[in-house]
């Protein structure tokens, strides 16, 4: 800690520990704030409170087992995390999965993205002091959780992907349920706008707050909706299409403002895009095998492999060094949350404590994703 400095007018900077237990850090993130009155001078994130050494544990697990660890990183994009590892193994072994699997994975990913953004929206409102949004978001998210439960047996950590395909076939009522959800959610999403986006208090709280320039977004590696709100075209679904993303039409949401409101808007727009993607795919799920023929024990050839996917928070990269054994030699996850957190100090200096909460909310941090 630096010594507390007394400025010319006799005021004193002081430190406040925000977290590890704090209502708006959404987990065990500790921020050491240096404040001058209410104005933030510095934000120093201290991470590692939920570090579970997932990367090290992965070195002792087979590739099929690693998937079950990735659920616990960014638990709100569990499906996408699983998909990243599954895709990596498939690409390394050059296994071609059936179209059915590709489409199922895409639909599931977008459902997960919707669920994650819904939760974010609810929590965002709560951080801004409007607790009602939280309950509204959970009402809608519940429907997605039910769909997931029917097909995969789990509501949050799905473990649905496996190298070569998916664990189980879709539940017979899957299509009907998803269509029903989409129909209802299309009427509920404008409600979100009514409650927050159109509210003058909310827009005043977020517009011009935590401005992130395009250059900074690129140099800090801020990806996902947070990066795209600054105009950084970083959607992996567009740049490196995987699964069935190359056969659907959707727009990459790019905004220019880069402030908290733009980040908020980017996610709301992204929900509409996710709905449109599901709309395009749900009626034409091709028939086919849900699992490509695989050996019981997967061994990757010697070498280095990298696979990236777009999670709800940004770009998730999986880097695997294999020495040809059934367990990897080294695994490294490039988690979106870590890079997005790194920009926090940069964009919240000079703002007030209340703004810091808004900025953190719009960065949409999931702490286990940062700590791993």
């Amino acid at each position, binding site marked *: 800690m630096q010594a507390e400095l007394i400025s010319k007018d006799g005021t004193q900077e002081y430190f406040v520990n925000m977290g590890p237990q704090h*209502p708006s850090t959404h987990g065990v993130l500790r921020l050491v704030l240096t404040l001058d009155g*209410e104005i933030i001078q510095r934000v120093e994130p201290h991470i590692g409170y939920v570090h579970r050494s997932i990367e090290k544990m992965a070195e002792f697990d087979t590739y099929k087992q690693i998937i079950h660890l990735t659920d616990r990183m960014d638990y709100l994009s569990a499906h996408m995390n699983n998909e990243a590892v599954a895709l990596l193994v498939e690409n390394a072994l050059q296994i071609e999965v059936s179209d059915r699997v590709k489409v199922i994975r895409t639909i599931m990913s977008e459902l997960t993205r919707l669920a994650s953004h819904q939760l974010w929206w609810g929590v965002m409102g709560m951080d*801004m*002091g*409007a*607790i*009602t949004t*939280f309950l509204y978001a959970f009402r809608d998210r519940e429907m997605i959780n039910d769909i997931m439960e029917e097909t995969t047996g789990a509501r949050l950590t799905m473990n649905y992907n496996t190298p070569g395909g998916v664990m189980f076939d879709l539940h017979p009522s899957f299509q009907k349920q998803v269509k029903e959800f989409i129909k209802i959610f299309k009427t509920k999403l404008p409600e979100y706008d009514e409650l927050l986006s159109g509210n003058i208090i909310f827009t*005043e*709280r977020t517009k011009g707050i935590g401005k992130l320039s395009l250059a900074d977004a690129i140099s800090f590696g801020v990806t996902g909706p947070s990066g795209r709100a600054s105009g950084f075209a970083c959607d992996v679904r567009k740049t490196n299409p995987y699964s069935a993303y190359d056969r659907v039409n959707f727009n990459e949401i790019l905004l220019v403002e880069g402030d908290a409101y733009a980040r908020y808007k980017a996610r709301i727009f992204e929900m509409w895009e996710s709905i449109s993607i599901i709309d395009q795919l749900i009626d034409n799920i091709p028939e086919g095998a849900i699992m490509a023929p695989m050996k019981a024990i997967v061994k990757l050839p010697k070498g280095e492999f990298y696979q990236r996917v777009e999670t709800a928070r940004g770009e998730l990269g999986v880097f695997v060094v294999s020495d040809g054994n059934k367990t990897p030699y080294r695994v490294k996850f490039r988690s979106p949350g870590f890079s997005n957190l790194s920009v926090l100090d940069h964009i919240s200096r000079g703002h007030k404590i209340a703004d810091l909460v808004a900025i953190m909310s719009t960065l949409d941090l999931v702490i286990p994703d940062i700590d791993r």
Partner: protein
Amino acid sequence: MNAIYDFSILTGGIHEWLSGLMSPTAVMITEMVIIGTLLIVFVALMGLVLVLAERKVAAFFQLRLGPNRVGPWGSLQTLADFLKLLTKELITTKSADKFLYNLAPFIVMLTPFLALGVIPFAPGLQIMDMNIGVFFITAVSSMGVLGILIGGWASNNKYSLIGGMRSAAMVVSYELSVTLAIMTMVIMTESLSLSEIVASQSDGWWIIKGHIPALIAFLLYLTASTAETNRGPFDLAEAESELTAGFHTEYGGIKFAFFFLSEFVNMLVVASIATILFFGGWMPFHLPFEWAVGFNHIMDFIPGIVWGFGKVTFVIFLMMWFRWTFPRLRIDQILNLEWKYLLPMNLVNFLLMALIALSGFYL
């Protein structure tokens, strides 16, 4: 107004009966004890009801059921919570300023008690009819912030301090708007006595008789008084998502309950004042037309206490409504809102009202 609903028959009877028994001094002391006890019971009861009401209203806004386990319709939930808080150990943190830390909850609780003393809830149901009632209430209600400030400071916690300072800056600013909005109505009522203000509305409420300035004054009063009671969207003294619990972070048990309860009783006080100034207190709803004599007569048969509490409930519901809908403002925005918008609006509105009063253009 129907005379049978007048509480002064009851209170006058008790007074005469006591006067026959003892000396005037003893009568006064006995009456003070009775009134004090009744006031405490009333505040405790209103606290229980309002906390439950808030939780139920919040639940209905949030697609939930709200408390429904303890007692029918969850009616004993607050009582159970209160008993839990009562049995908790009283902890004073080591670095706290002990005297001030323990004093703060009492100051906060004292304010609404004092204010309730001059509010007429029904005909004859008023503890003390001061001729400067409005002035007394504005003076007393600014005392509450002292408790919050002391509590925030004495806790010796940075979050508490920030919360206390925010509250001080905010309440001091919004006092102006509250007072000016009240003053706007005092032009019309031509009296500072709350019972006379109510009496002046026997032929129609000021919010109707006072034209547009009265409506503006009501909206300004509602906004400013919500800020004064530290409720959402102006609850940034507590600001759970920013300051954990703001000024009462370090308070637990019954001391916390005092802070918690005072918020609700303060809400009752400001809602009562709004009712008295704008909606005619316990006066029934009258139409100022000749053909409406029959209608007005029927309205007279609804007891004043029902009118009074009915209107108070309505204003409280309004306050709960926007608490559970709006996000919280930021401290500089709150001060901007007051100094740049509400205060100028209030001053113009004040002038408008004065012009209307001078021209006699009211019913």
